[in-house]
């Protein structure tokens, strides 16, 4: 179909900048995008009859990665390695 209506997974690498240009950057658009992403994740992994560990473990792993990324500057300083 047309470029602006495809999901991210169906967009080819070469078309990525064009796809990014078509998406909605305004606050409402961003909020809508976040809502859509969360609801698709929720419906796939949490809102099922018999879920497994995947529901929260993915969230926790994402949180770990994100917090490591935010604190990388502080962690990579070798000042405390000298105290070991």
């Amino acid at each position, binding site marked *: 179909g047309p470029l602006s209506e495809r999901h991210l997974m169906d967009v080819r690498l070469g078309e990525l900048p064009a796809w990014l240009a078509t998406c909605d950057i305004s606050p409402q658009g961003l909020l809508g995008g976040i809502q859509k992403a969360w609801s698709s994740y929720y419906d796939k992994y949490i809102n*099922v*009859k*018999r879920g497994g*560990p995947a529901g929260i473990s993915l969230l926790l792993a994402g949180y770990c990665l994100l917090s490591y990324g935010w604190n990388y500057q502080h*962690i990579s300083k070798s000042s405390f*390695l000298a105290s070991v």
Partner: protein
Amino acid sequence: VLHATRPLHTTQQCLAPLPPLPEKGGEVRHGLIPEEFFQFLYPKTGVTGPYMLGTGLLLYLLSKEIYVINHETVAAACILTVLIYGIKKYGPAVGEFADKLNEEKIGRALAVKNEAIKNLETAIEQEKKEQWRVEGRNYLFDAKRNNVAMLLEANYRERMLMVYNEVKKRLDYQVAMQNLKRQREQDHMIQWVEKNVIQSITPQQQKDSITKCILDLKALSKSAQAAV
């Protein structure tokens, strides 16, 4: 029968009845990585591709010190060990408990629904019975009409009887009046005649009649004595 020529899903998505929840969530391998990643890499690199990618990535991060090993690494390793052990041991039990709770909830909702359906069905049957009863209203009205006719007839006859009695009483009165008048006239005349007769008997006539009676009696006694 579904007529496939009619277009489906043309209106807004309607909320009831909801589609049922999917049975299982999205597949993940090792609890962390979705299956789609493995399927994505399968055509190009086969089965071991993602693992090779993971190993290479890990070595790169460690060697370049993008992931530093410090006290937090040890803590993370201990926490992960405990978590995985706990999940492997008690996971199924917790799952069954949650399933049981769900079953109870669904059972209660189903019971309410069945109860409502049963009540509505009994209401339908009673309604049908009432409709059947309505058909008998002809007989009801016939009976009522008969009753009313009988009442009218009885009333009419009662009044006729009353009229007859009243008329008879008046006629009887007239008849009695006439009889009484005749009788009074008769009595009066008899009395008047007797009075006049008694008045007309002069003393001379009285004496003559008494002498005649005595002579008659003597003659009779003579004939009687002769007979004996």
